[in-house]
């Protein structure tokens, strides 16, 4: 079974990607209490934008890696400011309906502009090599994804737990009204968090492009996985997201190796089991 280390690393790489997507989702959810169904659609937008940038700027992967999060940051900010904030007063159901509708529109728009078929993106030159690790040959690109996820995770943890901004963010999660009365501009904080979440998913989309082929169904596919991460890890918990992403990444990866027919259903079974045993998730607080 010399495959095991390879599949283990595959699982880690996918877990990194999943973490990048679900971290933004869980952060926005914890803070604003809005479950953003359009989150994965932004991830898809990131992937398609990077495809277009690389098409017109001849393979400038690094350029797209820097530009796409910025574009998504702006889009996310606009959505929060002009759409989400408008329906906020109408209640919870409307917010969910809005993000669900946005996801639908973005998917249709992607089909419109880029076509309803898969597109393969080449792995950028520098990263398109393999290295010897633990006695096996492994593609560098997957390790690069893992590194990105670790760096982003660490930066987020430092900001959240070591800076003044982090204190405000964590306080706003607990009680946004009190934070507001203490003189913090909470709506601005929400805007920033939402836009940051969008940028993060855009970033994930860019690095996902060369790993997986991009197609209009990719948003929904990762959305469900990200939801399972949130359910398993506990709603709004960043640490839970890390553990659950690792768990699900490995489950997917070894599922393909061991039970190729059942691999998709395994994730759902895990979710159903968690729902029965511990509905609040592994690290979630009791609702």
């Amino acid at each position: 079974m010399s495959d095991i280390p390879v599949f283990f690393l595959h699982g880690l790489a996918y877990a990194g990607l999943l973490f990048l997507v679900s971290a933004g989702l869980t952060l926005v959810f914890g803070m604003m209490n809005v479950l953003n169904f359009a989150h994965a659609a932004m991830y898809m937008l990131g992937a398609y934008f990077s495809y277009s940038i690389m098409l017109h700027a001849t393979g400038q992967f690094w350029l797209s890696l820097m530009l796409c999060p910025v574009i998504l940051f702006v889009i996310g900010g606009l959505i929060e400011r002009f759409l989400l904030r408008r329906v906020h007063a109408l209640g919870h159901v409307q917010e969910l309906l809005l993000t669900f509708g946005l996801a639908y529109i973005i998917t249709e728009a992607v089909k419109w502009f880029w076509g309803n078929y898969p597109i393969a993106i080449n792995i950028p030159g520098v990263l398109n090599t393999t290295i010897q690790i633990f006695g096996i040959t492994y593609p560098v690109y997957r390790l690069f994804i893992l590194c990105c996820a670790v760096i982003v995770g660490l930066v987020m943890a430092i900001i959240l737990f070591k800076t003044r901004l982090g204190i405000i963010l964590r306080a706003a999660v607990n009680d946004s009204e009190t934070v507001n009365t203490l003189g913090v501009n909470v709506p601005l904080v929400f805007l920033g968090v939402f836009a940051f979440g969008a940028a993060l998913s855009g970033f994930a989309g860019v690095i996902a492009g060369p790993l997986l082929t991009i197609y209009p169904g990719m948003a929904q596919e990762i959305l469900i996985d990200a939801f399972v991460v949130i359910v398993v890890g506990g709603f709004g918990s960043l640490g839970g997201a890390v553990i659950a992403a690792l768990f699900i990444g490995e489950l997917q990866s070894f599922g393909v190796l061991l039970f190729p027919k059942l691999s998709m259903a395994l994730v759902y079974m895990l979710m159903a089991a968690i729902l029965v045993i511990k509905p609040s998730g592994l690290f979630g607080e009791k609702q």
Partner: protein
Amino acid sequence: MKKNYVAYSVMVILFLLGAFMPVILKSYQMNMLTEIIIFTLYAVSYNLLLGYAGLLSFGHAMFFGLGAFVTAIAINHIPGISLINAVLFGLAATIVAGFIIGCLLLRHKGSYFALLTLAFNSLFFVVATKWSSVTGGDDGLSITRPDLNLGFTSISMTNANHFYYVALIVVGIALVFCWYFTQTAMGKSVVLMRENEERMKFLGYNTNASRLILFTFTGALAGLAGCLYALHFQFVSLSAISVDMTTAVLIMAFVGGTGTYWGPILGVFVYILLQNFLSDITDRWAFFMGLIFIFMVIFIPGGLSQVIMNLYQRFFGKKTDDNTEVEETT
């Protein structure tokens, strides 16, 4: 009580109007009307969840698709099965599924519930995709409508108009039953639960049980609509169980208005007519449908029925007193 007579008589009039339609309309339009009638049941069942109980589900298509697939599979695999039995198979499957899924999901509320219903919908979709030996996978399933055997006589279903009458009668009975349901103590308790669950609990109601019954009931209705859908098109594809089918019912119910009983019925008419109109002029009708939906969410959250009632109030002064049970309790 007077209000109830109005509602029932409106339904009877609509039913009689429907019964005369095959005389007036061409076969192409009849096909569309049958589709509208089937989706009416689907949308009303969804509204019982969203409008009455305030449960936002993104997984209603799993019941619709399950009903459609089980009916189609029963017809293909059990030779000589009667129409009624095939539908009963589909219905039974959705009741069981609704009960089990309801037990798992109804501990959660709001966003959690919405998320989990979507996840379960994709589970159903994945199973239908992967289990292609039974569901036909991407090719879908073709079926032939069996004849309707009533014991004393057998009615051929090869004629589309005959099936139209079956759909009309089944959906008509189901809609009357739904209306009756909203008037019962159970139906009213569902609305009260949405408004103030804590208080219902203090009054001694078992809110979890009520919610489970409602969830199973609406799932079964959606499943019945799915059975009819399979029989109408004589074909079931994966799209019947996909999230897009949930989006469709969501848009139908919401465009029509979730605040009233009849809103979603109006919504289905608007949706299907609009879909036919838009798909004639552009391939991208789904995109524009989404735009309309977002626009309604932001600017007209009450849907078309809200607009109509506002207009009615403006021109006829007195407060409308047709079936606005949901509104009155808010």
